[in-house]
């Protein structure tokens, strides 16, 4: 049989319609598309795709179930490995993971695993069926999970399934972490996130929102006074980085975290129906070119900005965002200002942004990351007329918990040091996700949560 290398495209909404609202961009497969795409899977004996998945989903099995139209079974296969298939099907960088590892990938025909995952999860959710949740007999062990983002949720889910009594302590007023405050509605609808998270509570996991780790509950108190046998720290990457250039504290300079939190979590895009305001720029410069930068740029466009620029010091080939995000951004009218780095935010006497002073770069020799190093071109200074700037250049670890967890070893960047099993320098205290690795992806955090759940389980059962 000849190989079928024709990936079935997933339809997207028209760029000029979607860049004016917050309705989801990607429309997902219909049943015919899903079946056609699933039928291309070779069902490899040694599936490379699985090795590319941070949570090791049995991908050939679920795809095979799709070809047999046994969608419920396909859904339960996904759920065996992942708490959030509808989320992951949407936001995972599949081209670097399962699809990147697919044996058909070198021939540009990787199976659309993410699209199929999304299809299966959406179909189950939309069917309104009650999910059957399996749970082992109670073990009598108590685990505290600090942080309700992807790492914490994933860990709590697995531990609860194993029969442990789990409490999640979340600092914000809702679970989900970056899924709720960071990723915009048009890429990841919040009702889908909420629905997938619901299962956590159905499994009996206790949720304490508005509970800032390190304040009301220190690690020491949880273990000594509250009777928790183990603690999983998954407080994420918190503190946004700035460039430390002049003018950075002018009024219309936002961190991407603030900008996206106002819009996604606080729903400032519905102001004044919602009380939280956000500044709407005419000409917006987003500094950085990762997924977060793309989100910030696309959000600005939707709020009504006339011109939106991604300002990035390397070239298009080095853009760290997922290819799909970059393509979607460009389709929606986002302009790329490449090989450019800001040196000053310009403002008026009242503290308002009036421009961005930049220098041009060219690519030199490869640096330690293997990417060609951007080198400043002498006397290349120029000004961009801009009235708003969003800094999307990453985040450091949240300092709050670390202040009050005595004896926890940190690396020089302030991240918690944990081994491959999530073990920290304190017995019974585990850590995973961005607080260990620095800012990464949803699925890597979920993988860390899942792996650490296994090691916490082992720790608890051997005690």
């Amino acid at each position, binding site marked *: 049989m000849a190989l079928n290398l024709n990936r079935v495209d997933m339809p997207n909404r028209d760029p000029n319609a979607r860049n004016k609202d917050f309705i989801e961009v990607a429309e997902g497969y219909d049943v015919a598309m899903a079946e056609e795409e699933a039928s291309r899977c070779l069902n490899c004996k040694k599936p490379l795709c699985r090795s590319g998945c941070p949570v090791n989903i049995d991908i050939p099995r679920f795809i095979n179930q799709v070809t047999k139209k046994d969608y419920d079974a396909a859904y339960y296969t996904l759920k065996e490995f992942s708490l959030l298939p509808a989320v992951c099907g949407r936001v995972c960088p599949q081209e670097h993971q399962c699809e990147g590892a697919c044996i058909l990938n070198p021939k540009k025909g990787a199976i659309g695993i993410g699209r199929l995952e999304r299809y299966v999860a959406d179909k189950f959710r939309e069917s309104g069926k009650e999910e059957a949740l399996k749970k082992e007999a109670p073990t009598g062990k108590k685990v505290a999970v600090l942080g309700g983002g992807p790492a914490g949720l994933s860990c709590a889910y697995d531990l609860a399934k194993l029969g442990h009594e789990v409490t999640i302590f979340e*600092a*914000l*007023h809702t679970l989900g972490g970056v899924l709720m*405050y960071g990723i915009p509605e048009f890429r990841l609808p919040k009702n889908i996130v909420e629905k997938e998270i619901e299962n956590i509570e159905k499994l009996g996991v206790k949720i304490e*929102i*508005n*509970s*800032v780790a390190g*304040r*009301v509950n220190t690690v020491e108190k949880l273990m000594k006074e509250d009777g928790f046998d183990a603690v999983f720290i998954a407080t994420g990457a*918190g*503190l*946004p980085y*700035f460039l*430390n250039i002049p003018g*950075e*504290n002018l*009024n*219309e300079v*936002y*961190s991407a*975290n*603030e900008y996206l*939190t*106002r819009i996604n979590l*606080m*729903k400032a895009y519905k*102001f*004044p*129906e*919602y*009380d*939280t*305001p956000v*500044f709407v720029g005419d000409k917006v410069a987003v500094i950085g070119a990762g997924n977060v930068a793309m989100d910030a740029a696309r959000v600005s466009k939707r709020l009504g900005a006339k011109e939106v620029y991604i300002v990035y010091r390397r070239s298009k080939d080095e853009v760290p965002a997922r290819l799909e995000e970059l393509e979607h951004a460009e389709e929606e009218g986002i302009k790329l200002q490449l090989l450019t780095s800001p040196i000053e935010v310009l403002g008026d006497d*009242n*503290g308002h942004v009036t421009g961005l002073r930049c220098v041009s770069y060219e690519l030199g020799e490869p640096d330690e990351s293997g990417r060609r190093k951007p080198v400043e071109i002498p006397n290349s200074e120029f000004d961009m007329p801009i009235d708003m700037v969003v800094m999307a250049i990453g985040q450091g670890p*949240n*300092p*709050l918990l670390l202040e009050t967890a005595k004896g926890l070893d940190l690396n020089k960047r302030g991240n918690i040091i944990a081994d491959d099993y999530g073990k920290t320098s304190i017995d019974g205290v585990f850590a995973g996700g961005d607080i260990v690795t620095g800012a990464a992806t949803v699925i890597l955090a979920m993988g860390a949560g899942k792996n650490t759940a296994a090691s916490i389980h082992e720790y608890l059962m051997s005690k």
Partner: protein
Amino acid sequence: MYKIVKKEMLNPSVVLMDVYAPDIARVCKAGQFIVLRIDEVGERIPLTIADFFPEEGLVRIVTQAVGYTSRKLMNMSQGDSFLDFIGPLGQESEIENYGTVLCVCGGLGIAPMFPIARALKKAGNKVITVVGARNKELLIWEDILKEVSDEFYITTDDGSCGTKGLCTIVTKEILDREKIDHAWAIGPVIMMKFTALLTKEYNVPTTVSMNPIMVDGTGMCGACRLEVDGKTKFACVDGPEFDGHKVNWDLSMKRMNIYKAKEAISLEKAIKGGF
């Protein structure tokens, strides 16, 4: 949900609320703040803790109707609940026995100053307090603050109570006649700025409590940035208290105006909403 156990109007535009939040009341310290959200559509606003009662599980907040959310808050009744109430946030005040401490408070700054002055008194300091308000009607808590002060002075802009004029007049008199080891200034940014400028002339180390715009209040967003000694700080995790002689005051004042245009829309909404 966090119940408003007690609501008391301190004057026509200032309200006191005791909120049932036992976890916070148990651990909070003078100088820290909370973030609250009234309802599902509400914004998150920071308020410095005015007092706390660990045994009753209560946290006291005092606020003034200025913008949309504070008006909405004032419209709430005893028995109503806040949807979210998060804390304690920020670093606690550095309370120690300095010797003689001068506490200068302007307007609503009287409320957050109270637990600090009380703690300073308890630590063995001689506490001299200066309270400034626009007029007699706007004065709050002068009796309560007086109790924890060794010396107590009132100034009003119109002279309707105490000395006529700004609080810096009396502050200067005290600085001229007495050796002050440390000063605290809490109030509107402009008042803190001029108090800090004054104490600097006398080389008196001065702590100020910043109350910028915030969102999460946990270090995640950076809305609350300010410059201290030329370096960017986050009021929520590095503060809210800073060395008043090193704060870039003009920047902080400008940053209060980010949402001026939006505030007009919000205010219209408040009027429509009947509060």
